[in-house]
């Protein structure tokens, strides 16, 4: 009877209640938790009651054969199949392979079941949904695996198809963008998709725009406008020493060399010799011009060190070995570094050279941060990001590519930039928990944890990984969730590689709440990071009218809040991409404080009548129609709308 009562209350309290109807919780809390959904263990609930709850709008999760499954028409037949290769209906071409095969009964499902996944060879159903009344059940033929993504990567998408939607959302994600994959898309269509996916900044491959070109420049301007309209920032992502195709073609004399003294065209990058003063000057000039030509919000100085992940063991990919480097090192150490290859790859002389090389990388980073700061003098709202491969978790990176975070991070005290830690390829196969560990190791190196961000590479991994070659579904959501918990910002590499099927759930995975609880018509939310709460209409937050809402989502700062229904304020910020600190609606006036590494963009529901920043009236700068651009840094703002 108690159970009956508690379930009944639960169904009244939660719009979408999730009941786990199998014996063991297993990884279900981790799966659902990755998009902010909690669940209730309900395996002891009588079958009739479970059915009733689902009819009333709850969602049930069933595993394999059980009395409850049978009540929904799911029964095992005598036939059995060994399953290793799975076809998911939403992405039939995606290779889903289980690391360990499993022999399972072939199940018979009711005719109205929606089969989401099948065994590739026999067609036996493995994951299916059955709608019942206002709710639905999701059935899987076997447990989803210890980590939650070993067998059914798209279990969350299946639940979403059945009508279960995450209660929280976020807009803290950065994404890398390369226009060569998107040169004929409708940019407004895409910008809208990015906004819905919680992307707050796009880091655009800027080397395609190094030299002015009317057609390409027009494309980029349209891209920036489409983003700004939706409060998405746009950063120039540069990948020095790669400058551009044309620069490489025009300046063969400045090309970087490998240790085999071949031109350093490695993978897609065509590397230039930035130690050559003339080359440096030309690149610096081109970069300044690039920054000034477009309405960038920031610059991302990416991966400015050397090649390759094979280190000195592979002379064919080892850089730098240009004349300037050889002369300088020979002058300092009395040895031409080229003479160290390949016979002395493991020698103490090589170690000394590699130490010097790491120092050279740091020197370059410092020089180029200086160059970007020069550009910032002309554009004070420009944010600067340094993308740097992790060498704390994978400690070989200093030797392999010259990356030395411990040496670079103290620069945070001299230069104002954000430090974006890139997951090295060597650890892409490890689970999401690595991000907590990376955060812990970096916290020891700098007190400015708010300047740290993490970059998740969403690509086909070279390692033998399962069930999918590239992170997708539950695995991706868990990665983003754990990373969002550990870091202020999460960047995804890259926009084009994120599978279409993942876009809708991404913003939920970026939202990390410590507490989410409804009491009557009130909602208590506690979070260490800003987030959005799905909420229809207006709300009072901690008793005061709240102005940051689009009628579907309430955007909140980090902290503890009680939300209760209220009338929608006349003046509202429907979307905001800075880190909100406080906000209040006073008549037609909105007061808020925020912090932002670049200018902050606020999408308003009216035109600005009066704007005060830190108590001073200023002229409103509009990034687009009804999109107010606010200065970078930490500010208190008062906006009065007409």
């Amino acid at each position, binding site marked *: 009877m108690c159970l009956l009562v508690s379930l009944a209350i639960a169904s009244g309290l939660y719009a979408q209640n999730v009941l786990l109807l199998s014996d063991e919780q297993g990884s279900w809390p981790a799966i659902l938790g990755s998009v902010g959904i909690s669940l209730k263990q309900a395996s002891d609930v009588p079958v009739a009651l479970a059915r009733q709850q689902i009819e009333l709008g709850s969602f049930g999760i069933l595993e394999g054969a059980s009395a409850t499954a049978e009540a929904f028409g799911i029964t095992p037949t005598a036939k059995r199949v060994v399953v290793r290769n799975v076809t998911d209906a939403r992405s039939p071409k995606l290779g889903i*392979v289980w690391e360990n095969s499993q022999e399972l009964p072939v199940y018979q499902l009711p005719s109205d079941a929606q089969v989401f996944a099948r065994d590739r060879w026999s067609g036996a159903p493995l994951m299916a949904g059955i709608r019942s009344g206002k709710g639905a059940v999701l059935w899987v033929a076997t447990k989803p695996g210890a980590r939650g993504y070993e067998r059914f990567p798209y279990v969350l998408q299946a639940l979403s198809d059945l009508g279960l939607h995450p209660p929280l959302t976020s807009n803290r994600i950065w994404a890398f963008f390369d226009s060569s994959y998107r040169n004929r*898309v409708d940019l407004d269509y895409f910008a809208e998709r990015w906004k819905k996916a919680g992307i707050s900044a796009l880091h655009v491959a800027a080397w395609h725009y190094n030299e002015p070109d009317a057609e390409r420049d027009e494309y980029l301007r349209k891209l920036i406008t489409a983003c700004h309209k939706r409060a998405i920032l746009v950063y120039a992502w540069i990948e020095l020493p790669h400058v551009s195709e044309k620069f490489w073609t025009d300046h063969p004399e400045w090309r970087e060399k490998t240790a085999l003294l071949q031109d350093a*065209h490695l993978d897609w990058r065509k590397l230039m010799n930035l130690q050559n003063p003339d080359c440096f000057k030309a690149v610096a000039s081109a970069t300044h011009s690039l920054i000034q030509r477009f309405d960038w919000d920031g610059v991302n100085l990416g991966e400015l060190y050397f090649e390759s992940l094979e280190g000195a063991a592979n002379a064919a990919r080892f850089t730098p070995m240009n004349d300037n480097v050889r002369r300088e090192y020979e002058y300092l150490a009395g040895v031409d570094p080229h003479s160290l290859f390949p016979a002395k790859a493991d020698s103490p002389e090589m170690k000394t050279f590699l130490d010097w090389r790491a120092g050279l990388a740091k020197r370059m980073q410092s020089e180029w941060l200086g160059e970007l700061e020069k550009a910032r003098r002309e554009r004070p709202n420009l944010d600067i990001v340094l993308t740097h491969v992790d060498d704390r978790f994978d400690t070989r990176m200093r030797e392999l590519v010259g990356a030395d975070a411990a040496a670079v991070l103290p620069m945070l005290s001299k230069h104002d930039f954000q430090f974006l830690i890139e997951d090295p390829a060597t650890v892409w196969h490890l689970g999401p928990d690595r991000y907590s560990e990376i955060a812990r190791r970096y916290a020891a190196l700098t007190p400015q944890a708010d300047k740290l961000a993490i970059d998740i590479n969403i690509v086909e991994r070279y390692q033998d990984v399962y069930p999918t070659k590239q992170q997708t579904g539950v695995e991706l959501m868990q990665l983003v969730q754990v990373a969002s918990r550990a870091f202020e910002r999460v960047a995804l590499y890259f926009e084009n590689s994120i599978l279409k099927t993942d876009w809708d759930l991404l913003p939920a995975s970026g939202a990390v709440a410590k507490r989410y609880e409804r009491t009557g018509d009130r909602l208590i939310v506690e979070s260490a990071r800003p987030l959005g709460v799905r909420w229809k209409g207006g709300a009072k937050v901690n008793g005061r009218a709240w102005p940051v809402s689009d009628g579907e989502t309430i955007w909140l700062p980090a902290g503890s809040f009680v939300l209760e229904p209220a009338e929608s304020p006349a003046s509202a910020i429907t979307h905001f991409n800075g880190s909100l600190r406080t906000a209040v609606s006073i008549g037609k006036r909105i007061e808020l404080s925020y912090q932002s590494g670049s200018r902050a963009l606020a999408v308003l529901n009216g035109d600005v009548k009066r704007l005060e920043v830190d108590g001073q009236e200023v002229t409103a700068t509009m990034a687009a129609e009804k999109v107010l651009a606010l200065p970078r840094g930490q500010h208190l703002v008062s906006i009065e709308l007409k």
Partner: protein
Amino acid sequence: MRGWKGILGLVAIVAVAAGPEYAALDAAYTALRAKDYETAIARFTQAAELAPKRADIRKDLAYAYLKIGENELARDRFAEAMELVPEDHHVALEYAFLCHETKQQAAARRVFDRIRRTGNATAERAFQNIDGELRTGIERWSRVVELQPENFSAHEELARLAEWRDDLATAGRNYERAWRLRPERRDFLLRLGSVWRAQGTPERASAALLAASRGAEPRTAEAARELLPVRYPYVYEFEAAIEFDPSNITLRREFAYLLLEMGRRDEAESQFRVITELDKADSLSAAQLGFLLLNRHEVEKAMPLLERALKSDNDVVTDRVREALQMPKTLRKRPETPRSQTSMEAKTLAERSLEAGYLKDAVKYLRIAHENDPVDFSVMLKLGWTYNMLKDDREAIEWFRLARRSSDAKIANDAERAYRNLRSGLTRVHTNVWVFPFYSSRWKDVFSYAQVKTEYKLNNLPVRLYLSTRFSGDIRGRIQDVNLAQPVGLSESAAIPGVGISAQPWRGVTLWGEAGWSFSYLHEANRGSDFRGGISYARSIGRNLGSETSGIFGETTADGVFVSRFDNDFLVYSQNKVGWTFEPLDTQLLWNWNLTADIRRFAWANTTEQGPGIRFRLPGIPKSLVFSVNSLQGSYTVMKDNPRPKKYTDWRVGLWYVFAR
């Protein structure tokens, strides 16, 4: 009002004239104008289905996909449009550019190359860009490979670029070298399979893919499985794969068990020996080799292997070794497990036992599985097979009988077939009827041979007694040959009842003897006692009629028969056929080689024949009815007293029907 009706009518006429796709297209363009790309794509797709020959719809669909960044789908639609209008260079270029963007460089290069040859400047530029970059890259990495032959990533890079440039020889060589340097990168075997297949060397491709499918990491194995034929590999394919990948233990072990199954023990043993040398931890192979040696009483050689196997943590292997060495089995306390789990575990152990060839263990585990899940028909079927392999057909037939009730059609069919096959061998009284009528163009006559035979199986004796009635006759009865004074018969034109005894067939060989009486309805000389007996042999290999897949087949029948009525003659017949079976057509194209000889040197009994033929079944009629048409070139090998020319041609059209009760 009348005017509106007119306009609507006109629109309707235009719509009909424009085709059934008009409405869908109209909706598509409307959605496109509103930037509702999803709807536009759905409507264009619908229109393309309604007008499958219209390339322009596919082009517009592709452009709609491009708007939402679905470049691969756009590329595939352009590919379809290109197929419809190969002369449209604009479509081909769009396709090629998208191939390039979606990392299908080889396809892009090929299309640009084709179009540039027509003088198209854009294609020329694009080709040179791609080809130049590839050429430079190949030169650069070739130089690295020259300088550093052990540089794995250089071989990999060179192979990839060469594959994109359709330089398949370089690609294959370097993929193979890269794989040899990093044997754990078994995904290279897939690349090799693909490159070698494109190079026109399917045997090498098959070897690489077979190696990838066994022992590789699951992802690679699954990918290889998709590229290999559905059928089980042939022995020569295993041999080629092992030659290519000699350290692939899983592949070699599977091959060794296949050889064992085929009775090729020596070869199997040598494979197991290689495995035990390559992998000291392979307890299964160590145990198997130990058993083989033990069977040959080579105890000293067997013991180290069996001791090695005893150290394994594989319970099935250690139990089997203990049993063989007459040691007590180890007691293992098992946690209490649910019945379903017990059944599953038992089935897994049974599978492992079957894989290892431990049939008695397999029976034990399958019985446990059956006890825990009495309605698992797959277990019943497996029990049937296993008992059958253990030569316990009485037990096997019971399990097949039960498994026939499965709701799974495949299990039920397999069980039914096995049940029927076994039942005929187990019943004490068994009747067999065959009939073989055919038309011969040489004799312009229809001949017919037939036999009804009822066998009685004797308890525990390897022989059977039988009653038989043979028939041999033709329609013309007699012919008048110009070279002979008297008309002669072309067949015995007789029924010959008799009693006989036959031995149990052993590897296709049967001994038999029969005593009877010939009742000829035409030839007096053919009446009287008839004693006959001899040896017969029949064997077929490959894909016979009724196989699941097409393939080569071969069959031979040989008979040595003593017949008292023909001057106590001893005749030898050998009929051989090789050819290709086409499934599911149920048809064989074949080549015949027939030889007949006797010790009395009668001309009619000494011939060779050869020639093509076709054999087939027709749908809807019993499977045991087979039609044949053969065109034979014959030659007499004895011409003494032979009134006929040495060479002859004969078309034979006939049918073969057999049934048993």
